[in-house]
């Protein structure tokens, strides 16, 4: 049983961090499809940073700085240039995927996977079987709680929601929606960097191109499935991770009798199911117009 829970925690943790970034962006009124790009940038920067500087801490810092800079760029394009969020988000994702491949190629001269000498600090022997998990797994519930407090129990969170839901009202009480979105995206950048770091450096300590494999999009789906609420979205992300872990488990138990590729497809199918279910339960995208356009009044 322990190894199943470990597997679930391992695949859920990166997803939860990125989902939290998506929740904050969603609250501020931004459909963040660039999560995938930020996540892979964080993963790549963590591994390359560890290889080049030798220290995981400076690697994490580099990853955060890169993700924050990319988030500011995204904010500028969406808020100042009024670009369509969906297309700009996909562009950001493309920049992340292409940029990390280019970075690996320019430093190592090939597209092969890069292995780092050290990873994130582990929990250690006092946690028994769970000692091989990284420290970010333990911090994950704290981050969820912190984001919940920030969004649902502080003045800042209320203003953030106002900036997303009714920018005009926010402006009338002296809140600048654009600046709220900038802050939201920058916090999101930090969380994406942590998610990417956990993905790349939490267990196996390597980076290969396209290693996020759609997790950023799954995180975005978890935001919608969880109705933009930090706790709800976290459980949605956990659900996707559990489905994935069940797939891997089933493969170990049943071996060749279950087609391997069907199990690989399970998380994606679960995501489609989650989106469909949340649309059934809460009503989905109603009007066609306005989707992907920033609300300004």
């Amino acid at each position, binding site marked *: 049983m322990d190894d199943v829970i470990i597997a679930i925690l391992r695949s859920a943790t990166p997803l939860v961090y990125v989902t939290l970034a998506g929740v904050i962006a969603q609250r501020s009124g931004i459909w963040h499809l660039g999560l995938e790009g930020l996540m892979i940038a964080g993963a790549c920067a963590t591994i390359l940073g560890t290889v080049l500087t030798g220290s995981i801490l400076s690697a994490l810092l580099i990853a955060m700085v890169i993700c924050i800079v990319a988030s500011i760029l995204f904010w500028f394009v969406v808020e100042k240039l009024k670009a369509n969020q969906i297309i700009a988000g996909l*562009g950001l994702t*493309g*920049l992340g995927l*292409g*940029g990390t491949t*280019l970075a690996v190629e320019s430093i190592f001269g090939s597209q092969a996977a890069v292995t780092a000498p050290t990873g994130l600090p582990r929990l250690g022997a006092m946690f028994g079987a769970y000692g091989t998990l990284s420290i970010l797994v333990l911090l994950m519930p704290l981050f969820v709680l912190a984001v919940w407090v920030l969004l649902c129990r502080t003045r800042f969170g209320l203003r953030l929601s106002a900036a997303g839901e009714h920018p005009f009202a926010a402006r009338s009480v002296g809140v600048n929606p654009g600046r709220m979105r900038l802050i939201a995206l920058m916090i999101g950048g930090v969380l994406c960097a942590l998610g990417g770091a956990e993905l790349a450096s939490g267990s196996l300590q390597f980076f290969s191109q396209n290693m996020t494999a759609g997790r950023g*999009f799954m995180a975005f789906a978890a935001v919608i499935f969880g109705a933009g609420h930090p706790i709800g979205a976290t459980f949605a992300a956990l659900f996707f991770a559990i489905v994935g872990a069940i797939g891997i488990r089933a493969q170990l138990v049943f071996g060749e009798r279950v087609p391997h*590729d069907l199990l690989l497809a399970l998380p994606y199918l679960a995501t*489609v199911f989650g989106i469909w279910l949340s649309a059934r339960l809460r009503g989905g995208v109603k*009007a066609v117009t306005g989707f992907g356009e920033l609300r300004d009044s």
Partner: protein
Amino acid sequence: MTESIVSVFRALIFIVIALALCGLIFSVAGYSAPDMFRAIIDGAFLRTGALQQALRWGLPLFITAAGVVISFRAGYFNIGAQGQFYIGAICAAFAADWLNGLPAFIVIPACFLAGMTGGALWAMWPGILRLRSGADEVITTLMGNFLAVIVLIYVTSGPLKDPTGSGQQASSRPLDAAYRISTSYGVSPTIIAIAVLVGIFMWLLVNRTAFGVLSGLAGRNATMVTWQGARLWNIGLASFIISGALAGLAGTVELMGPNGRLASGFLPAHGFTAILIALVANLSIVGTAIVALFFGGLASAALYLPVIAGLPSSAIDIINAAIALFITAKSNIVDRFLRNWRKRGWTT
């Protein structure tokens, strides 16, 4: 007319900004940006046979992009062109496999029918989920892309596996030469004819039919169209099906033309590039045809870069992504600048 000139200028300005960002990224990564751009322009447009290569890559891209235009005009973000492209190619490959041995004039049309049906069906389920339940089609079509990649891996390493193939990349058995519609160089009268037909049909559909007018209106104001008595369900589903069928058609063309076999993970950037083409062309069919040639050139440069210039081909992905980041921007600053500039142009 002046309105469209302004939009062309706006697109050009943002493409220049995007290229500047690319130059910055190349420099940070340690490459010389001028060298990189020179190599890309060489590979895309200046080397001998560049036009032929631009056509080889541009024509399938145009077919998919025309489909993207249809669904985007109707207001549906069908991001799943890549998946529909794959499923189309897979269905065509199955058709060719089952009918192997029959004369070409039966097999080729059957493959095209299978490919277009496959693509249409792969676009239809997100369409139905969207129209019946309101499930966000951006996510469902994206997931459809990942699922299609898995299906492609399964098919090329399972039912259609080529037992003599190399271990590096799983692929299907090569098609019989009689069933190919072009050589591996990729341009043939058949493919050009298909692309021209698609262009004419889609232009007529968009500009000369009730569906074209209504879907364009639905994209801008769905409520109004409903109140005027049009069936949003029919328009929406039709636009999903048409865009999927065209992506499937492009997959079939790639399979039976230049590729000649299914390989797992072939042309992974096709769908994204097609979406980009449709957006750069501002969702016009004529514009799409022109822009597709440009991006076709870029796509051929992706092969040229590592082999001739020794530069990484991911440079092309970065250029495409940067253009996507900026292409939908409609900044007031730029618009005001363009308007002033135009006024000055008229008075003096």
